[in-house]
């Protein structure tokens, strides 16, 4: 049984169809990259997957739960890192993680042990007793990552996991996500960053105009698992550009903009593009 199953998901806001017949599956052990331009329906999909909104149609299952009918149980089972989420301004990281442990019915001793582990992993031990309002964005993001994994969920849904993190911590988080998925968990990552998706995901789906337009498997580390197939031999960026409509082009991810507009310069062209002669 797929850890996450989405069939014909639809959601409109007034006359705008934010999600229009979305279909995909995420299996346990997969690190699934959810790619798409701004306004493609990514955040709406995540909200539907976690019972934060009621879809207009379609069927969604997360770890066997129907998020619309059982939102609390769904959110109890999964971990969520929301888009631009930030921890409560007037709690400290230690207090916030205790708060999360309490609403998730975790034992205080377990929470204390998890706090120690996450502060070691992400290096915010020195900030454990500082109010969030006085922490940098990056430090706040570390705390948000810790809360999403505090209860070691079987599935996590993450929106832009590496936002505001320094390169060192980015690498640590990327390695952790790969290892976490490999431990028979489902990791769903929504991101604009194609390089990140290529480097850590085992499979990616590209969405545009509220629909899944293509999916492809990637071997660990971004090596193309289906390189012998013509369509899949293209670098992910090329696939992305091909699938995303002109209407969405203005919202292309930053790395795509840079490459299209030649900001990085010829000498810094993506080696994978060089290799394919593109």
């Amino acid at each position, binding site marked *: 049984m797929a850890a996450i199953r989405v069939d014909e998901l639809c959601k409109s*806001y007034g006359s705008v169809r934010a999600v229009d017949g979305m279909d995909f599956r995420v299996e346990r052990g997969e690190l699934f990259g959810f790619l798409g331009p701004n306004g493609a329906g990514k955040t709406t999909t995540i*909200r539907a997957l*976690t*019972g*934060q*909104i*009621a879809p207009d149609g379609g069927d969604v299952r997360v770890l066997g739960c129907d998020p619309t009918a059982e*939102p*609390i*149980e769904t*959110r*109890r089972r999964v971990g*969520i*890192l*929301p888009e631009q*989420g*930030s921890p*409560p*301004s*007037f*709690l*400290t990281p*230690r*207090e*916030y993680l*205790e*708060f*999360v442990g*309490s*609403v*998730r*019915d975790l034992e*205080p001793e377990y929470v204390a042990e998890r706090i120690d582990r996450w502060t070691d992993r992400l290096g915010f031990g020195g900030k454990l*007793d*500082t*109010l969030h*309002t*006085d922490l940098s964005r990056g430090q706040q993001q570390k705390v948000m990552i810790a809360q999403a994994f505090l209860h070691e969920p079987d599935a996590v849904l993450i929106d832009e996991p590496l936002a505001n993190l320094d390169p060192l911590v980015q690498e640590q988080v990327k390695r952790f996500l790969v290892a976490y998925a490999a431990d028979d968990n489902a990791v769903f990552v929504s991101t604009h960053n194609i390089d990140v998706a290529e480097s850590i995901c085992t499979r990616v789906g590209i969405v545009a105009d509220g629909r899944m337009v293509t999916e492809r498997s990637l071997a660990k580390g971004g090596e193309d698992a289906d390189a012998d197939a013509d369509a899949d031999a293209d670098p992910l960026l090329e696939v992305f550009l091909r699938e995303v409509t002109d209407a969405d082009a203005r919202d292309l991810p930053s790395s795509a903009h840079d490459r299209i507009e030649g900001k990085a310069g010829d000498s810094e062209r993506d080696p994978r593009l060089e290799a394919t002669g593109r």
Partner: protein
Amino acid sequence: MSTDAHGNGDDDRSSNARLLFVALLREEWRLHTRLFGGWRFAFFPLVVAAVAVAGTVALLESGLADGTILLGVHVLAAGFGLYSGTAAFAGSDMLENVFGELSLLLGSAETLPLSRRRLLGLFLLKDGLFYAVVFVLPMAAAAVVLAPARTPAAIAAAVVGLWLSLSIAFAVGMTATVASIAVRTRGVPTWAIAAAVALVAVVVGVSGGSGTAVPYVRAVVVPLEAGPLAAVGIAAGTVLLAIAALVAYDPTYGRPTRTVGDRFAALSDRLPLESGTDALVAKTLLDLSRSSGGVWKPLVSATILFALVAALVGIVDAITGIEPAPGVFFGGVLGLSAFTTYNWLTQFDDLESYLVYPIAVEDVFRAKRTAFALVGAPTVLVPYLAAVVWFDATALDAVVGAVLLGGYGLYYYGLTVYVAGFDPNEFLFDAVRFGAFTVGVAVALVPALVVGFVVVPPSLASGAALAAAGLGFGIVGYVLSSRAGPRWERRYLTDR
């Protein structure tokens, strides 16, 4: 025309200032229409004008002197200016401590080659203009009643005259706040600023109505009475003080990092509530106590309400010789502090932020109600006890008033939560919701006040009837607050 190294001349700079000013005005309008009920916000000035006219008629009919009403309207404008001046906090972390995270054009000085000081000046100018038109101008409709004129031109002149006077009072208030913030950014501690303000208030207060300082203070607050020349002088002085405040303002000011011990676990353990709810309540209490102003904020709000009501009782007594039953009167009115207390309890979070946890929206509302009971009870009890002691209430009056206070407080709370959900501050600017809230308050409050004025001290029968009303409205409030969770959950699930 002078130019700099990049060929940017004075014309470019003034053109940029114009562009920026227009963008700031547009932002202000969109902020209000987005936050406060969309197109319905356009009706808000009409509501203000209607309240100003109706209130003035009512006060005149009750025998209050023109000058007292004029003073009251100006004090309101100045008070609103004091509040609006807090915009000088915007873009710094100080405002976020009070109102949560903001993202305004004012913050663009961090990313664009714009002077933060100049941008703040334009921002405050825009605020002054916006509020002078959207809020102060409708208040000036009171002139139609205060200075009855026969010709349209005379009516227009009276309204414009009062508008200009109120606008100066508003600017005085706004400038006073900005100046206080400016000296704060220069390292002057908050307690010293508060002490200076208190000293001025005491000097003016001690000097009484015949003191030498009073006419000057009154002239500054009510420029219309001081004459055109003095009004121009006050306006010029206010502008000079505003410029001095902007010069003194240090845009680099930042509060030191705060480190605190773990209080969450101890607090949630002490709360005799089920697991999960105790965490939500503890979080709300910590948010309140650690934000600027601390746990005193709700008490200050309730005390302001108490002072206004006490002054009103004095005025009514002076005019009519009738003094209401203090327990009933203060019990009924002080319950209104439920609105401000709830507002403070929801100021530092939003409902969406809870939806990443296994918590129902209903649970969040229930936890807020518990926090409201914990914070609201002592907040309102202090001024109530002061009132019954000060005005020498009978035992029956005090008991009935206490029942009214508890019941009505819960009713006003339930009404607020049901009508406004998690955004009580915003719905005040939504004419339809504000109207519903006002009617809901009046239904409970007006009969209680009438009885409080007519039967002094309350008889056993009237006391029993009022206590029953208090209990009844309390039950209604409890039901409303219980239904608020499912009602707003449905809205969040379908509208987001």
